[in-house]
């Protein structure tokens, strides 16, 4: 695992850059625990101050320090995405593996359910649910909701991974030499699934962050908690653009771009590492 990480950092420029960006985001998250203000303090500082040395990213019309707000926002957005990803990938991995290993009727039933669910559009459903739960939505509930709606694609991918692993010759060798089925799954197959899972988790983060921002803009998430989306919502609500206080909007917009690009670069690095064809192609270039 560690060797893989070192190789990735050394040989994949996109993984390196992505990790640095995500490290910055992690630092913001850690800083949020040392914030001088409570997350929902109003009138804590002078209002409408442009970015300066004292207030790095300026202050809002409600007297909040944008920099410290942003640290909370990044933390909460990542919490939402984290919950969504663990629920979604949890369901996806389990269903995909069941369907891949058991095969037969179970596989056929599960696959047709998954194929039906994939087609159903997620955003309108999310909007419908969020509208009904309006006012009672917490960030945890939002994370759960996104997770529950985002497992069909991953499960389909894990199923095909398992199917291909099952047919490899080393699996047959293990079966014929009398290895226990659980042992094959855990010792032989998991090492293939885990890097795949990592790349998938990263793309799950991208999706969840996008949905969080979208729902908040529509005013459908928990607007009293600082998230990247709710910061933009309130920035628009208090007309930051028309009153020339762009910094209130620029901070969350910038943060969201930086975070998603960071995640995306990491996922590119990972999937290049996973794809042997690309690895060969790169080696050929290096010669």
């Amino acid at each position: 695992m560690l060797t893989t990480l070192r190789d990735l950092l050394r040989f994949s420029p996109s993984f390196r850059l992505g990790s640095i960006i995500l490290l910055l985001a992690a630092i913001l998250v850690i800083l949020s625990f040392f914030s001088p203000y409570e997350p929902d303090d109003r009138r804590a500082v002078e209002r409408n101050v442009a970015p300066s040395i004292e207030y790095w990213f300026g202050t809002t019309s409600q007297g909040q320090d944008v920099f410290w707000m942003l640290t909370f926002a990044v933390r909460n957005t990542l919490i939402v995405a984290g919950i969504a990803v663990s629920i979604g990938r949890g369901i996806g991995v389990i269903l995909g593996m069941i369907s891949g290993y058991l095969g037969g009727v179970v596989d056929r039933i599960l696959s047709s359910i998954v194929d039906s669910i994939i087609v159903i559009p997620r955003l309108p459903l999310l909007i419908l649910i969020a509208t009904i739960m309006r006012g009672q939505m917490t960030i945890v509930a939002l994370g759960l909701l996104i997770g529950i709606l985002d497992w069909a694609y991953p499960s389909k991918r894990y199923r095909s991974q398992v199917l291909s692993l099952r047919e490899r010759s080393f699996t047959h060798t293990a079966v014929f030499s009398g290895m226990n089925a659980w042992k094959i799954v855990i010792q032989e197959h998991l090492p293939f699934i885990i890097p795949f899972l990592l790349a998938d988790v990263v793309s799950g983060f991208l999706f969840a962050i996008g949905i969080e921002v979208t729902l908040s803009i529509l005013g459908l998430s928990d607007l009293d908690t600082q998230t990247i989306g709710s910061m933009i919502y309130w920035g628009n609500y208090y007309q930051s653009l028309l009153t020339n206080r762009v910094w209130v909007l620029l901070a969350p917009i910038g943060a969201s771009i930086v975070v998603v690009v960071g995640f995306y670069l990491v996922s590119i690095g990972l999937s290049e590492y996973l794809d042997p064809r690309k690895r060969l192609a790169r080696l050929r270039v290096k010669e």
Partner: protein
Amino acid sequence: MTLLRQYILPRIVQWFVVIFVGISITFLIPRLSPVNPVDNALGRLTSFQTMDPEASQQMRATLLDLYGLDGSIVDQYLNFWGRLIKGDLGPSFQSFPTPVMQIIGAGIGWTIGLLGTSILISWTLGLILGSLAGYFSNTWWAKLLERVVITIYPVPYYILAFILLMLFTYYWPLFPLVGGSRGEPAFTWEFISSVLYFGFLPALSLVIGGTAFRFIMAKALASTEMTSDYVQYADLAAVPKRKILFFYVIRNTMLPQVTDLALSLGALFEGALITEVVFGYPGVGYTLYNAINSGDYNIIMGITLLSIVGIATASLLVDLIYPFLDPRVRLR
């Protein structure tokens, strides 16, 4: 005949299953929620005016009937289907008693025009640019293009649209802030040019986002195709590069792209939401946004149902066209 039985029939069954499951979910969600939409609506009404208890009871009964919340859950479910099959999505709650269908119909033309055009443009653009970049992956422009795309692609669409809006309507006011056109709809140059003018910025944001996605897909497909034997053979046989790219590589990568094109056309209903909200464009997405703000469940449900039917139908059509595009499906 085996094609019909083994390929076409299962697809049609799948279509029914998807629609059935999707509509059932849409039916269940409001009923599973702890919030009763009737009480919610009643609360909103009574917060503006005082109402004597009798009138309030009457109102409640009317609302229950309106939302189809009368009787047991099975009755409700059967009624719900009965109305759906007649194409009746119920009245809009906010602008009672206009039917939901009529309200959605008013916006659908704008949405189809805007999304249809921009999806087609971004599909073509992304496919060609991506395949070029995949084929000539070692040139400087391919690398530059890829860097740009990698930065744009993961950015949430809202942010992209909002940045464009800030730049081109506020800091450099080239384009109008809200609206779809000027003047009455007519077949005149003035009206058509105003539609193009108002639609340009929303379309641009969709084209940028869509092209980035298509580019990545096309590039991945083209670089896989590049390692195929036939491409190397064609190269050795000194077939012109242009010909290899456009007549062999792109043709072979078309299949998943056509699927995806149909699916994104099927997703018209949901795709327009953010665009139309950001740019104040008078389509279905904007209608949905207004419905969200006023808690108009019938409209939200109607649009959700339509988008499920749209997507399911698009994917059915793709599956049915497949055998014509790909002989391998036909022969299996």
